[in-house]
């Protein structure tokens, strides 16, 4: 037998050095290094671009279609389409971002033992080990969802699940990954699995189904409704998790459509269902979940904003990591950009994008139709980072989807945005976005004192659930009866409202 030649890969900027046999796929190698594969490695989205600085990597037909001759010339390749045939030095376009954890103080009824709360996101996972008698967080662990190599967004994940063995693969990956996160938690807190009584997981409907082993086929096409969205309970032994035999693992119930238990947890965390006045919760991620209502009635929906707020599908977009322009302000008619890590700017992240467009509207570099002034094709933020006309269009689509979704829900509730007492923003983007800029671009037309960044409300809600398990089994039946899921695709007025919301507000409209 001939032995396969091995090659060396040096990864920039991390400096990690890897060795792998010839023919190995760059996808598997680089996924371990935190590179994401938005379309699941189908060569469609360009999201997995890496730059080959030394060595050769063949560009196949898919890459020649997706990358310009100039980009190919400059060494850009789609990592998902390359296999190893040479020693390489590659520069990663994305670096993994800081994942939002939660350390909000909360009220609790003490219970004996330890518990684990898990926020199972499409992109990221966060797990916390909690002492149930003191409420103290003993350890925290974060990771990128191991399923993400098979597609960054839920639709690509569903598509992968539909293929032979796809669903089983995804289920196995995520169950194992969470088991290992819990093991790490126990090691760092120096406790044994025997002490863990309960594990509570929250996530969107697709994550719920893929973890629990439920068929996801109904979620892949119209009307995107599954009838198995309730609480799922497992014995730790069933999952082959190394915990106390009597300990229970619960995946909290979803709310309908793609709106999952992460949003149910968000409702618990922000106490929406206890509010006398009308309040709201928004998660400005790819699926753009929104909840509005009060103690007697809540409406929720997901609005499919797309990944623009995460910097994806933006020509120089990137995650909020070193080199990203994260803030843009106007001083004396000039742009002042703040770059994460105080290095030379390399790209722009979601909060920087929203800021930049707000600034552009202010100095009239961008018109309210979204058109760049003077018919320019691109606009320089800080050399070499530019926004193209198309980037602004992407942001318009995302913000219109959110704005239209909230208008429709608020109409159901019989109120308007201006009459909300408070709007909570869940998730990382909601935490970093400048509220005045969100208002300037018409994403959230509220004065900043009526908008509260609420952090990782999914994780906080999961923790709260851990403390309620003596009185309640985690099914939240009564609460769920008060929450109505509104499928926006069935709403006749959506298209008109969406088109209306595509433009940015003209400056006279925005009161400070």
């Amino acid at each position: 037998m001939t032995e396969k030649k091995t090659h060396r890969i040096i990864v920039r900027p991390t400096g990690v050095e890897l060795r792998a046999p010839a023919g190995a796929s760059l996808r598997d190698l680089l996924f371990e290094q935190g590179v994401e594969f938005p379309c699941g490695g189908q060569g469609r989205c360009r999201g997995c671009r890496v730059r080959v600085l030394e060595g050769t990597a063949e560009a196949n037909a898919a890459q020649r279609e997706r990358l310009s001759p100039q980009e190919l010339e400059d060494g850009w390749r789609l990592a998902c389409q390359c296999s190893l045939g040479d020693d390489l030095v590659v520069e990663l376009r994305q670096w993994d971002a800081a994942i939002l954890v939660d350390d909000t103080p909360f009220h609790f009824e003490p219970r004996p033992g330890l518990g684990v709360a898990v926020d199972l996101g499409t992109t990221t996972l966060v797990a916390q080990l909690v002492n149930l008698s003191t409420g103290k967080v003993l350890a925290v662990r974060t990771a990128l969802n191991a399923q993400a190599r098979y597609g960054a967004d839920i639709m690509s994940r569903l598509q992968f699940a539909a293929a032979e063995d796809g669903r089983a693969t995804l289920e196995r990956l995520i169950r194992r990954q969470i088991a290992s996160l819990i093991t790490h938690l126990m090691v760092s807190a120096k406790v044994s699995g025997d002490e863990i009584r309960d594990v509570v997981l929250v996530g969107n409907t697709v994550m719920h189904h893929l973890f629990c082993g439920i068929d996801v086929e109904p979620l892949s096409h119209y009307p995107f409704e599954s009838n198995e969205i309730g609480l799922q309970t497992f014995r730790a032994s069933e999952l082959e998790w190394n915990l106390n035999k009597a300990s229970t693992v619960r995946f909290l119930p979803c709310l309908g459509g793609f709106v999952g238990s992460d949003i149910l947890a968000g409702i618990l965390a922000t106490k929406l269902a206890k509010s006398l006045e009308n309040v709201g919760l928004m998660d400005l991620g790819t699926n753009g979940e929104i909840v509005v209502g009060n103690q007697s009635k809540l409406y929720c929906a997901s609005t499919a904003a797309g990944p623009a707020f995460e910097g994806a599908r933006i020509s120089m977009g990137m995650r909020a990591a070193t080199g990203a322009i994260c803030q843009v302000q106007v001083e004396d008619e000039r742009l002042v950009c703040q770059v994460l890590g105080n290095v030379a700017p390399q790209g722009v992240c979601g909060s920087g994008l929203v800021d930049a467009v707000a600034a552009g509207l202010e100095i009239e570099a961008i018109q309210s139709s979204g058109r760049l002034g003077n018919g320019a094709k691109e606009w320089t933020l800080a050399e070499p980072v530019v926004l193209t006309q198309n980037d602004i269009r992407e942001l318009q689509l995302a913000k219109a989807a959110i704005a239209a979704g909230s208008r429709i829900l608020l109409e159901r509730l019989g109120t308007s945005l201006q009459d909300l007492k408070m709007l909570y923003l869940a998730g990382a983007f909601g935490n970093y976005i400048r509220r005045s800029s969100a208002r300037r671009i018409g994403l959230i037309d509220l004065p900043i004192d009526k908008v509260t960044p609420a952090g990782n409300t999914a994780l906080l809600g999961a923790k709260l659930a851990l403390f309620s398990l003596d009185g309640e089994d985690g099914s939240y039946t009564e609460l769920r009866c008060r929450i109505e899921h509104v499928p926006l695709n069935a709403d006749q007025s959506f298209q008109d409202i969406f088109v209306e919301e595509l433009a940015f507000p003209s400056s006279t409209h925005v009161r400070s």
Partner: protein
Amino acid sequence: MSIFDELQQAIIDGKAPVAKEVTERALGEGVRPAELFPNAIVPAMNEVGRRMRDCEFFIPEVLIAARAARAATDILRPLLVGDEEVRSAGTVVCGTVKGDLHDIGKNIVAMMLESAGFQIVDLGVDVPPEKVVAAVREHGANVVAMSALLTTTMVNMKAVIDALAAAGLRDQVKVMVGGAPVTESWAQSIGADGYGKDASAAVETARSLVAAA
């Protein structure tokens, strides 16, 4: 400015009441209905298509321009019935594939095709392959235009092509596909005859498919 230029400008600017007024005035002045298409409406929508391709126009501008074009064509169509001189550019059956309800892009494509002189049979959203087959048969369509916006519903375009083949209609009709996740190479791989990145490309593709038939 000639009356043709006036109508062209009104459409590009998206001014439906002006488009209606100019059309009526033109007819009053003795312009034949058939003349307004090649001299004003088609070039206006070509310009709208160009601006959309160059990112000058976005969805709202395209929609209001299409609305203005419709204000003119609504007056002209009844007058053209039986007019030998104006031949339709072809008949297009369009729709969003089964399982998918996204129709903003499909509607823009349909409007642009309509103002380019095509007869449109719009089957709406969540369209099963059988419905496409029936419509192609009933209307003797030249082109089928399918739209999909979801990775999970794209595959249903192939189902439409297969159903047309099974019904023995595949060589009578050209199939073009589009929508954000659809690419040229994917269109080829499922055996479609054409692909369009945006609505103006859709018009060009439809024209060349009809010409080649």
